[in-house]
């Protein structure tokens, strides 16, 4: 692992401003150093030219020539995706002292939980209101709790915490820097790297630096869409789900805040009236959404129509239509007395894609298992209770592809049937699968085994020690 890159980083770290002595060399400094080049303003010395190999048009077909890719990094554990699952995985692994590299498509961390403006954190409680999702996710919430306007409705079941997206981005950036892991943002994983046995050895990325490879002992696919395991040839089920675009509105102070947390679930009508059959008949006069930790700011969820989250044309047309609808909604909101000055604070930078690929794993979690509360020997955590479904166990086997080696999967694209994935995709459950995948990956590195041979007892032990609830 001690290649040129690392040594150069060391030197950079030591020279950057001369702020750090070798003794106080924190991982933080290393990460800053990794991202800051020599600070000379103006024209730069020429870079060694890479051999160019553009795609060519042959007989009407576009052909990508075989070419060697520069290797950006060699790492122990590569985490693709920096959403709830990816950040939990990367942080958990790095804390075990194993070197981690995390790559994220956007310029912030948190995935749909921040960039998707999906701000409500559920389900974290069991039937009796006891919090059963802890570990790194709980730590993130505790950090948010220390920030002004960071999180509301903590520890108030049946209400669920709601976070502020920017506060959450800040917390994740801070935790990432402090952990000492390597992170690359605005870097899109486009392919898997496999060896001749078919085992995954890393991934290929596109960024402003061009197409580059990262080699790794173990890859954790936390892309939400299973981009990497699909590219590696692992089997999966493709599904379609609702795709919406979440937004936040400002100047909403007279809307929801008065009643505080309890008002969130309050029905506007005190007595029930018999509704009519079928589709809603009354034209809704502007959806107001519900409160966020930030004063005067509401978030407006959108379920959206069922669509293919892997089809760029569909995604594009939906995103454009959603934006128009959100503006029209704003205009309706402004017609309500007291809301004349409402404004659209932001539409989510990330489209609200819920489910696309579901892994064909060693153990597929099914609706029956979920409803019957099936227990697993290789349990790695719980989902909280949701609707009439009690808290249920998540097995390690749901994170391991049936055949493909050296990949672990975390987040919304794990091995579950559609009904279960509707719950395992939720933010706190992604924390759970992320944390377990991270720890399991460190065991693979330390014990030199593949994910399917991980010592389950050891894995569960470490999870327990780090505060994860295993029943």
């Amino acid at each position, binding site marked *: 692992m001690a290649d040129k890159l690392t040594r150069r980083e060391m030197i950079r770290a030591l020279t950057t401003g001369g702020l750090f002595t070798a003794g106080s060399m924190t991982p933080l400094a290393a990460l800053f150093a990794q991202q800051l080049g020599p600070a000379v303003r103006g024209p730069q010395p020429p870079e060694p030219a890479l051999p160019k190999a553009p795609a060519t048009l042959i007989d009407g077909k576009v052909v990508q020539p075989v070419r060697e890719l520069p290797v950006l990094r060699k790492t122990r554990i590569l985490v693709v995706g920096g959403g709830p699952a990816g950040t939990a995985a990367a942080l958990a692994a790095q804390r075990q002292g194993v070197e981690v590299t995390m790559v994220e498509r956007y310029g912030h961390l948190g995935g749909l939980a921040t960039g998707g403006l999906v701000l409500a954190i559920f389900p974290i409680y069991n039937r009796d209101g006891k919090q059963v999702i802890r570990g790194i996710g709980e730590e993130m919430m505790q950090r948010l709790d220390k920030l002004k306007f960071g999180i509301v409705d903590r520890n108030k079941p049946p209400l669920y915490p709601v976070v502020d997206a920017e506060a959450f981005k800040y917390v994740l950036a801070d935790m990432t820097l402090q952990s000492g892991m390597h992170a690359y943002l605005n870097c899109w994983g486009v392919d898997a790297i496999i060896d001749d046995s078919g085992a995954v050895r890393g991934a290929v990325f596109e960024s402003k630096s061009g197409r580059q490879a990262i080699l790794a002992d173990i890859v954790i696919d936390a892309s939400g869409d299973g981009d990497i395991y699909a590219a590696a040839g692992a089997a999966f089920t493709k599904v379609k789900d609702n795709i919406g675009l979440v937004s936040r509105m400002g100047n909403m102070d007279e809307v929801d805040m008065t009643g505080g947390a309890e008002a969130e679930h309050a*029905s506007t009508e005190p007595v029930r009236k018999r509704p009519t059959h079928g589709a809603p008949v009354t034209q809704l006069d502007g959806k107001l959404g519900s409160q966020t930790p930030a004063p005067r700011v509401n978030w407006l969820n959108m379920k959206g129509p*069922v669509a293919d989250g892997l089809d760029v044309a569909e995604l594009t047309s939906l995103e454009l239509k959603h934006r128009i609808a959100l503006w029209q909604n704003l205009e309706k909101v402004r017609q309500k007395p007291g809301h004349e000055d409402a404004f659209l604070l932001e539409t989510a930078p990330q489209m609200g894609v819920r489910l696309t690929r579901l892994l064909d794993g060693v153990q597929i979690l099914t609706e029956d298992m979920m409803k019957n509360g099936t227990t697993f020997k290789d349990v790695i955590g719980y989902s909280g209770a949701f609707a009439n479904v009690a808290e249920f166990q998540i097995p390690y086997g749901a994170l391991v592809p049936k055949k493909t080696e050296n990949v672990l999967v975390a987040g919304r694209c794990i091995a579950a049937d559609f009904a279960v994935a509707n719950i395992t995709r939720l933010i706190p459950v992604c924390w759970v699968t992320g944390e377990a995948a991270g720890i399991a990956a460190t065991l693979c590195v330390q014990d030199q085994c593949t994910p399917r041979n991980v010592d389950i007892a050891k894995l569960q032990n470490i999870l327990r020690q780090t505060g994860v609830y295993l029943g």
Partner: protein
Amino acid sequence: MNKRRWQSVLIRLLCLTAALVLIWPLTPWDNAPRAVVETSPLVAICASIINRAIGFTAGIGIVFGMLSILKKRWFCRFICPTGLVLEGIVHIGLKRTSWWSRWPPLGQYAAALTLVGALIGYPVLLWLDPMAIFGSPFAIPVAGDLLSGLLAGSVLGILLPLTLLLGGVWCGRLCPLGGFQDQLAALKPIIAGGLRTFRIWVTAPPRRPGKISRSRRAVLASLFGFGLGLWGRNSGLARAASEDAPLRPPGALPEEHFAGVCIRCGNCTAACPARIIRPDITGKTGIAGLLAPTIRYDSKEYCREDCNLCTQVCPSGALQALDLATKQRYIIGEALVDTSICLLTLGKKECDACVVACPYKAIAISWDENQYISYPAVDPGKCNGCGACEIACPTNPVRAISVWSLLPDTSTAGSVVAAPRFLSG
């Protein structure tokens, strides 16, 4: 006490014990509580009239009725556990007055009213049957709150002090089953003597001059029963026509008959493991509907898909016996969504609790492109009104999705016992 009386007491003690064991229920048979109540000849006959069929347990009651023709008050003497309990109380009672013995045989009128009512599908006073009364206190611990529990056992609650004060007035004058047995016993000479005896009975003058004759009393009682039955049915029809009629347990007859046929024995309330069946004390269903069982989804429980117990224990036929598969298709009501408070529709939360909760997969999220909203859409072909969605819906105090009574189906209204409604398939 003579030997025969001892024998009778012994047998009745055995019957009391058996009834307790069956109704508790300490036996593995789901419909044991039903059998206890149906041993009453009055219940058995009324239920058979209403259901147009004689079940096995009703058969026992009818046999007991025949025995009562041969032997005056045979049922009182050998079976009735309520009578035995009351007799015990008479012995410790304050006064052993019997001035009430000059009262007319009110129980006989009650029985007549009830039988005539049963003919038009509304057995008016069957809820006063002693076997129904015997069962009702077993619903107290599960009736939800103390008040409805106490009311559920109220008839017995009234009988106990009444007996303490007035002694054997219930068995002697008030009990419709006692009265019915007296009527049955009166049949004996008629059966033996044929038409002639019947003519004598019909034309007999009043015992005391100036009073109404026996036959006229019978006719009056019948007319009265007919009238009350009609009134009960009409109030039921009015209830059924309302937009917010009470929800009845699975297998229930249509609303216009249900409250009349139901004898308030409390078997269904006691049997329900989810404890969602409660005697109605709200008064919303009028006097005619008082204490008849309703389904309430105000706890954390719904009508479970793996249970049909209530339909197995009903002795009156107010709840038809349904096997599990048929019970799942019985329509308790329909889930309707108020999109003006639904968290999903309003964009307040990523909620699909109702969809997840539905055991029959009857709810799906629908997308309305014009209004750019999503809403939970209930498939009326799959929804039986079990309430799983209602208890899962996080809005309060009013749930965005809740179960409502079916609006009356004009095609079946008016028949004597309209069929309950089921999902097809």
